[in-house]
């Protein structure tokens, strides 16, 4: 089992959710984060004072999957999260991290492991 952690552009969330559904990944957890990376931030203005803001709004997905689903999940995200024209990726489109996962327990009925995922 793996925990797949993906940081994506907020406006790609719907597409990614759709792509995951297509590969039969139906469960995930989403949160608001801010990223700092190669992509440069933006400038805000306050009464003539320019301010550099280098944290950029991103969305973070956590998806626990069984081994068989790891690659399809990654492929689905990579494909759907790209925001450039013609499905090309661009800086800022995000990262996917794959973490080992020892166990999963479903609260409602206590199911454990791959079953409970």
């Amino acid at each position, binding site marked *: 089992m793996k925990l797949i952690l993906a940081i994506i552009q*907020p*406006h790609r*969330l*719907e597409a990614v959710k759709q792509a995951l559904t297509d590969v039969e990944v139906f469960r995930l957890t*989403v949160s*608001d984060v801010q990223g700092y990376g190669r992509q440069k931030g933006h400038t805000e203005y306050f009464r003539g004072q320019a301010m550099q803001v280098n944290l950029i*709004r*991103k*969305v973070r997905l956590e998806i626990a999957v069984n081994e068989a689903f790891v690659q399809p999940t990654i492929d689905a995200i990579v494909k759907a999260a790209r925001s450039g024209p013609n499905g090309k990726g661009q800086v800022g489109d995000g990262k996917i991290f794959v973490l080992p996962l020892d166990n999963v327990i479903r609260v409602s009925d206590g199911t454990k492991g791959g079953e409970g995922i």
Partner: protein
Amino acid sequence: MGFRRLARASTARWMFGLTAAVLVMTMAGQIFAQTAPIAASATAAVAATAPAPVTGAWAQQTYDTGSTAWMLASTALVMIMMPGLALYYGGIVRKKNFLATMMTSYSALGVIIVQWFLFGYMLSFGTSTDPTLQKFIGWDPSRLLMLGLNPITAVTGVAGAPAGGQFPVPETIFNMFQAMFAVITPALIAGSIAERMKYGAWCLFILLWGTLVYDPLAHFIWGNGWLAQLGAVDFAGGTVVHISSGVSGLVAAIMIGKRKGHPNVIQPNSLFNTLTGAGLLWFGWYGFNAGSANAANGLACAAFLNTTVATAMAGLAWNFAEWMHHRRATSLGMASGFVAGLVAITPACGYVALWSSPIIGLAAGIVCYWGAQIKTIFGYDDALDAFGVHAVGGFLGAVLTGVFASTAINGVAGWIDGNFHQVLLQFLAAGDAVVYAAVMTAIIIFVMKLFMEIRVSEQVEIEGLDLGIHGEVGLDTNTFPEQSVAIPFGAN
């Protein structure tokens, strides 16, 4: 194609039905118009006189334009108290109940204005021909649906009309000014039962309460009913508005029960909104208090001054009281103090000597602070302190009116003018309001409970009333765009 889909949609049947209903009503209105003058009482020769075109009959006015201008502005000012109250209350509750709490105020605007138009005004300010009946309720069909309300002439023949009539205003605006009072009073009750009452039940409750509690009480004191005849005074509603709503709130809170998780449910979602709401309340309260002079006269100005000074002092006093208690002066404290001061000065502002207003404010800030602590001792869940602030502050103000009334202001002598009797009268009126409101509210809720569920389900209480009842979210701070998928028209 678009239209065909529409016609097929199951809900679309309603559209045609309703449109038809509107058409029918329009027709009905037309017929009605021709019979109305007959149906209405003899004083309502509205449609009979056909004034000259364009300028109409407005030239035949007998009212004072300056006072009319002030009453128009005052009525608008009292109206803004509802959005103000919505923010004031809404900012204190938990985020998940924000909109539902605001809706208690907005729905009062909807429900009570219509009730007032239909019969509420008559019940409160109509003059009954039977003098015994008149002691208790107004009954004058010419004031039903405003059929006999001449839009042209100044207010006359209405109980509670502007004092002495030196500066009369058109009855239409007197009516609307009083309508706003009838609206805000039940809206105040929402503070006690916040975060747990069903929306439909709330709408029904305020309709009944407005009719059975507010209208009679207003009639007793302002509609030349029995309390007025005894000599009790209430300039802008300490008894009629604040005691009645605060006491009813307490009764309702007890009968409906505590919120799940009480007392660990205090989690104000946006106190900045509460402060803004308090600011709008103060602002609108000038219409409430100074407008209660029914004229742009010196009395209105004196009421304005008394209101301002008492309010400011009460804000400081509340801050002082909590500083003594906890070594903290909070912003909600100052806002609550302002409201407490406004409540207490409401019955007094048009009677008491100018120098007494800071004393009343000081008392209000301190007493209402402690009034808000009572619930933690007895354990009932007066969520937003409608009782602690409005009933306590209203009672205090009603009694202090008896203490500080000065003949120099409005001809009524209080204790400071040697007339201790007025204090007793004020106690009587306030006590009557306490008993009447408590008993009637208990009956209304008891009866409602026989027929319906008035409290939301546990599921909805957990999820929040905004989503559970109204299907909406009050403040969405998500970055995720396009999170929702529109369901095609007619698909559900």
